[in-house]
């Protein structure tokens, strides 16, 4: 009756556990390396934001003569200009309408231009890569041990979730995006998540109940994990935006923020960059999140006899979806830009988290076979 291959292979499952523990050890080392990066970076005394706010616009980033014969002008809100470098292409000068503050320069990153700090930062990234490799191998072997998608209970979901978070981060790094500032909060979260997974949420590898035997398990759940991981990156962007924004407002009002605050905030990207980062991620992920829910509804239609039945998981997916939709609308509405919209984004992500932890643990719905 049963086919042999479907039985969980305890040995491989054990290897998977060792891999996850090793990954956690290396993430911990990376965590300390990121701390070292921030610490050494505090030696640099850059205060570019304040300088930029007071500087004469004329002095700022005048366009450089074009090599290809054409310069393209890029304007910013305060009327200042910046130049978009495009090797061997015409130069475009752009003018943005970023608001009264204009485009403030981005901070130099955690290392703050400090050589030693930068070295530690690089070490931290290398360690993150290594930890990720172990982590991914752990997820893969878990999948091999049960011969199915490795995300059918909360333990598996959590390990896969933080794996995708790190993958997203490394992906952005490879694409040469300015995201090194996420490193520390990211590794902290990953450690927390894995810590929870191996202690509270751990479940032995096992076969699935018939309702989970479906290719929708691959589509619906993997998409949910990917969306959640990317929403998390957007969430970090929104949180840091709020800090950095209040710091910039502080400076605008002519006050002098504390030394530690200045040191940290100066190394982060500008509020408008952080905001843009968060928005782009959230907007890009939103259609996929929508599809995740639709896929879930199709699956529910086949497994449970109705595509929508206000099961707690469905309710909270819907709430999360509406919250992100409200955030996107808020961005298009004059009075809701900036901080208010960012709070909405935080609320939306909180809903996502609750939909995962809260609903699985507190409520007893049809999704409960996910198992704690």
């Amino acid at each position, binding site marked *: *009756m*049963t086919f042999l291959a479907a*039985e*969980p292979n305890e040995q491989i499952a054990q290897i998977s556990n060792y891999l996850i523990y090793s990954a956690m050890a290396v993430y911990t080392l990376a965590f300390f390396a990121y701390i070292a990066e921030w610490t050494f970076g505090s030696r640099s005394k850059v205060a570019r934001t304040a300088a930029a706010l007071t500087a004469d616009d004329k002095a700022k980033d005048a366009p450089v003569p074009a*090599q*290809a*014969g*054409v310069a*393209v*002008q890029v*304007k910013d809100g305060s*009327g200042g200009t910046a130049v978009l470098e495009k090797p061997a*292409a*015409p*130069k*475009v*000068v*752009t*003018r943005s*309408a*970023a*608001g009264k503050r204009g485009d403030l320069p*981005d901070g130099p990153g955690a290392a703050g231009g400090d050589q030693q700090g930068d070295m530690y930062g690089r070490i931290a990234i290398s360690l993150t890569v290594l930890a990720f490799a172990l982590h991914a191998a752990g997820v893969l072997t878990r999948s091999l041990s049960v011969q199915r998608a490795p995300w059918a209970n909360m333990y598996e979901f959590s390990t896969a979730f933080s794996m995708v978070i790190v993958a997203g981060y490394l*992906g952005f790094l490879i694409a040469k*995006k*300015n995201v090194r500032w996420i490193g520390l909060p990211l590794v902290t979260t990953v450690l927390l998540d894995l810590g929870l997974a191996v202690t509270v949420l751990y479940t032995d590898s096992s*076969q699935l109940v*018939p309702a989970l*035997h*479906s290719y929708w398990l691959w589509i619906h759940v993997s998409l949910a994990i990917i969306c959640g991981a990317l929403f998390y990156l957007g969430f970090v*962007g929104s949180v840091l935006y709020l800090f950095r924004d209040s710091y910039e407002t502080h400076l605008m009002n002519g006050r002098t923020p504390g030394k530690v605050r200045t040191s940290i905030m100066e190394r982060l990207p500008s509020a408008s*960059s952080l905001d*843009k*980062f968060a*928005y*782009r*991620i959230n*907007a*890009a992920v*939103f259609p996929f999140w929508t*599809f995740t829910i639709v896929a879930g509804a199709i699956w529910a*239609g*086949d497994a449970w*006899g*109705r*595509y929508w039945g*206000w099961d707690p998981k469905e*309710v909270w997916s819907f*709430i999360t979806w*509406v*919250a992100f*939709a409200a955030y996107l*609308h808020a*961005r*298009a*509405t*004059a009075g*809701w*830009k900036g901080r208010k919209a960012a709070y909405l984004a935080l609320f939306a992500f909180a809903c996502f988290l609750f939909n995962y932890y809260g609903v699985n643990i507190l409520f007893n*719905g049809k999704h409960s076979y996910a198992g704690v």
Partner: protein
Amino acid sequence: MSTTGSDVGTGETDTAREGQEPPESRESRDSRETREATSQLSTAPAEERLNVPSLGVLGWLRWFWRQLTSMRVALILLFLLSLGAIPGSVIPQTSVDAVKVDRFREQHETLAPIYDKLQLFDVYTSVWFSAIYILLFISLVGCIVPRTWQFVGQLRARPPRAPRRLDRMPAYTTWRTRAEPEKVLEAARGLLDGKRFRTQVKDGAVSSEKGYLREAGNLLFHIALIVMLLAFAAGQLWKSDGGKLIVQGDGFSNTLTQYDDFKSGSLFTPDDLDSFGFRLKDFDADYEEDGPNKGTATDFSAYVSYWKGSGGKEKDTTIKVNEPLHVGNTKVFLIAHAYAPVVTVKDGKGNVAYKGPVPFLQQDANLTSSGVVKVTDYVDAKGRKDQLGFQGFFVPDFAPGTGTMFSRSPNPNNPSLFLTAYHGNLGVDGGPAQNVYQLNTENMKKFKGKDGSPFAKRLEPGNTMTLPNGAGSLKFDGIKQWANFQIVHQVGNGWALGGALTAIVGLAGSLFIQRRRVWVRAVTGSDGRTVVEMAGLGRSESAHLPGEIGSLALAMQEAAPAETAPERPAPTDETATDADEAPAEDSATDHPDDPAEPADPAEPAEGAGT
């Protein structure tokens, strides 16, 4: 909707005014031009101030309508809808689990009536939840209809003329060339046409626009939402949902009387039932045979043959947990399964009083099941009319000698039937409807064995239990399987799915496509060379726009090669001097009605900030 965008007509006199100074000040003209250039780049409704109307009832109604269809209120309603959905996930819902609601009512005697008043046990059908839902729906329609008209207008309109000061646009480039202005413009138009911009040449400049699909996508998305909401409502109103237990070999035809239990939506009529039937031919269940999850089901298959209409041809198919049978708007789901012992009961005269399978209901994961056999048509040894009842357990895998009656596994390795026999009045004739799976022993007596203890016996297939005093017998012939099916009829599923998928496509369009305008102007400069200016403007601030302008400019070099590189682009100095008149801010403060939102950084195509 705002009318600001369409007054492009005033621009007609610009060329005439060239050189001479205002009626209108330079700055205000510049910012007006900027507004014109950005006009109609979107159909987002204008944000209006909350100024209270003074005009009687009609004024109030108009005011109310405007508020309802504004983005701000839509936002608030959306937010309320998600808040309103929360209690439904915390408090047990009748629609999800009625038993749980009853238990909650017993446990919270003070709270329950309050919840009842607030309809908190039926959040998703409550008056207040429906009110939010319907208001949002109206808001959505009220928003989409004018936006669609506006968009159709925009599709027919030509791209707006080039603003006089192109260097004020978000992305700008300029160069000098020996090519004739006309040639340059012709080349520019050709280039832009080739890139699928809509173009027009007017007053020595090419105006062009691209990315209308963004707006189309956005409208499509919102319309798809309406379709989904309607499909969802229709699905609820015409829904029917019933259960049927079928023993191996038996059949079902889809009429109201055949159901074991049945629920339906408020507009459902029995005529809505799809005409079909099916027969359960065989059932197969696979279980994990060893390992830590021994006994866990891995697969269930119900082999059925079904027919459409009355007397349609029978076709074989398999119904599994994730694979219901589809017939018309009806789906047949496999919900549960267990065993039905087949018994033959003979009466006191030796005649067969009952013969057939009796479904026993599952009590645990190993299918230890309980059930009853009711024999209504029975006479005792003396020929007196009486009734028989047997109550007991069926255990598919009995473990002899362990003292437990629980099954070791769901597989029928050692099937056993434990029955206690009764006689008397079953209470099935008249009176309230009875549960067929329970024995009402109120008016019944247990048969007694020789020692006076209740008469009970364990039977294996083939065994017979002979009742005392020639009262008859029960033979355990064998076992069959039964399966429970849920038969759901729901309309509009296709519409809901189509709406959902269309919504995603529209959403992707509206989020990833950038609507933008590009202008190219070529005039003869003071040195006799042609000055080419190119500028771009997006619906929102875009990281791609400057790149696009850059590559367009590069492509233009073939037709209009750059002469010498100027030290710095000519207009930059000027820009720096009037640095304080950032046009976007002007429009934001002076013209709240302006539909354009040039500061919206809705440009998610890239994953990360710069």
